[in-house]
């Protein structure tokens, strides 16, 4: 099946700092989503971004489908940004494959 690799696995940020999370995938995809899993375990949909760039407040994402990667940018990080960020992709077979996640801790 398709392989999804996320880096870095762990990241500690000072509040106010910016960061970039990366997702590489091993095959062409029809769908790519970024999720934030908060400390209560809830999966929050951040972006549906099979290609191109989107922005939502302090977060933005870019997917370069031809080069098989996606980036999630967090600007001016806040403690509420802490949690695990998951990238997930689908090849059109109706099953999302998740990466292992980026564990982000934002310290005040």
């Amino acid at each position, binding site marked *: 099946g398709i392989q999804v690799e996320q880096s870095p696995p762990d990241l500690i940020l000072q509040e106010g700092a910016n960061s970039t999370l990366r997702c590489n995938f091993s095959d062409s995809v*029809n769908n790519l989503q970024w999720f934030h899993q908060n400390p209560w*375990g809830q999966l929050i949909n951040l972006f*549906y971004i099979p290609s191109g760039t989107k922005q939502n407040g302090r977060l933005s994402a870019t997917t370069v489908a031809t080069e098989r990667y996606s980036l999630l940018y967090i600007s001016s990080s806040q403690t509420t940004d802490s949690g695990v960020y*998951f990238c*997930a992709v*689908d090849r059109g077979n*109706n*099953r*999302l494959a*998740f990466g292992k996640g980026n564990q982000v801790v934002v310290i005040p």
Partner: protein
Amino acid sequence: EPEVTQTPSHQVTQMGQEVILRCVPISNHLYFYWYRQILGQKVEFLVSFYNNEISEKSEIFDDQFSVERPDGSNFTLKIRSTKLEDSAMYFCASSGLGLGNSPLHFGNGTRLTVT
């Protein structure tokens, strides 16, 4: 904004017991899914469901698992005889169109603990 709702939020059961996890997908969605996440690990696909039948299932989804859409609003996952290794967070999701054409929306999960 419409949400996927799951009940219960936490279920504790004894090994060998049957459990039913319940989900109400977003009302105009057509595709339904179950995923699970063992503590500290990544989220894994279990099954997708469309037009009252399973469209895809993973190797995890063996004969102990079944899904059902008993009425126009609920979508359930049944584990027939739970094992310790079934302890996990179970997520229900739905999408308006098939994957590749629209995003998945996830519920808040049911944390299943098998003792």
